[in-house]
């Protein structure tokens, strides 16, 4: 319906959406300068194609979609070349966690209780800080896969085609990223 059509108001963008877009990009990139750059690029790209805006979604949703694509470009750049190395590393390091012969947890990596299971762990400042540091330690490609899946809930085949990885590699990375994150929490918290 024409009356419900959303309109663009570029003069209003910075005030209305800049902080939101920055907040969206920052944890996904973990890099303030790069996040700022992408906010700017998003606005400029949006201006260039504002005729293509059909008014079907809100202005913010439309801008976020443009930003999302730019973030994926960054992921791709960051992980190209390192890709096979990262997957191989993931596979090899799995052996640090489990015995090679029977696949059982080895002694050093067996899960231990965090001791905060009954409360909201992010309320604990120290735990929160450790958690963020552990996230930052994940390799770029893992972080990309992990975020696209768990935060943006992208379809698995889209992630694979956009990051140019196989389904098998996707699962290795998902598995490994979580094992790693959990181990990092255990190491630094308990």
């Amino acid at each position, binding site marked *: 319906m024409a009356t419900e059509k959303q309109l663009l108001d570029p003069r209003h963008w910075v005030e209305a959406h800049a902080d939101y877009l920055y907040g969206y990009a920052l944890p996904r990139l973990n890099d303030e300068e790069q996040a700022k750059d992408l*906010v700017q690029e998003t*606005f400029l790209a949006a201006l260039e194609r504002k005729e293509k805006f059909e008014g079907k979604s809100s202005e913010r949703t439309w801008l976020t979609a443009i930003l999302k694509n730019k973030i994926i470009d960054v992921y791709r750049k960051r992980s190209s070349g390192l890709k096979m190395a990262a997957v191989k590393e993931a596979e090899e390091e799995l052996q640090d966690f489990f015995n090679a012969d029977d*696949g059982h947890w080895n002694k050093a990596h067996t899960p231990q209780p965090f001791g905060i299971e009954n409360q909201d762990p992010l309320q604990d400042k120290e735990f929160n800080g450790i958690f963020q540091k552990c996230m930052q330690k994940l390799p770029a490609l893992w972080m990309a896969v992990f975020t696209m899946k768990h935060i943006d809930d992208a379809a698995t085949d889209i992630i694979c085609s956009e990051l140019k990885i196989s389904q098998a590699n996707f699962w290795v990375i998902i598995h490994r990223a979580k094992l790693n994150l959990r181990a990092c929490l255990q190491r630094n918290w308990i």
Partner: protein
Amino acid sequence: MNPLKKIQYNCRQATFLIEKKQIKKLSFREVIELRIHQAGCSACRLYDSQSRLIQQMVQRLFLDSVQSSASHLDDSFKQELQERIEEELNKK
């Protein structure tokens, strides 16, 4: 070793299924395998609950970031951005 014996003692495979489960529906066979394993493995039961806890924390962290004041742009950057946009608009 028969296949069920294999999963019974294989935490590597069990943790893989625990991760997969959070993304995709497991096959009937996988569900059974994981149940059998977890029935006898307290480490993997703990892993399961911690894994889901971590999942929630990750999601929260990202949501909070959109709202938190830590992720606000500074005014001078915003002003530059505004000027840039005006400039582009006036070109046309």
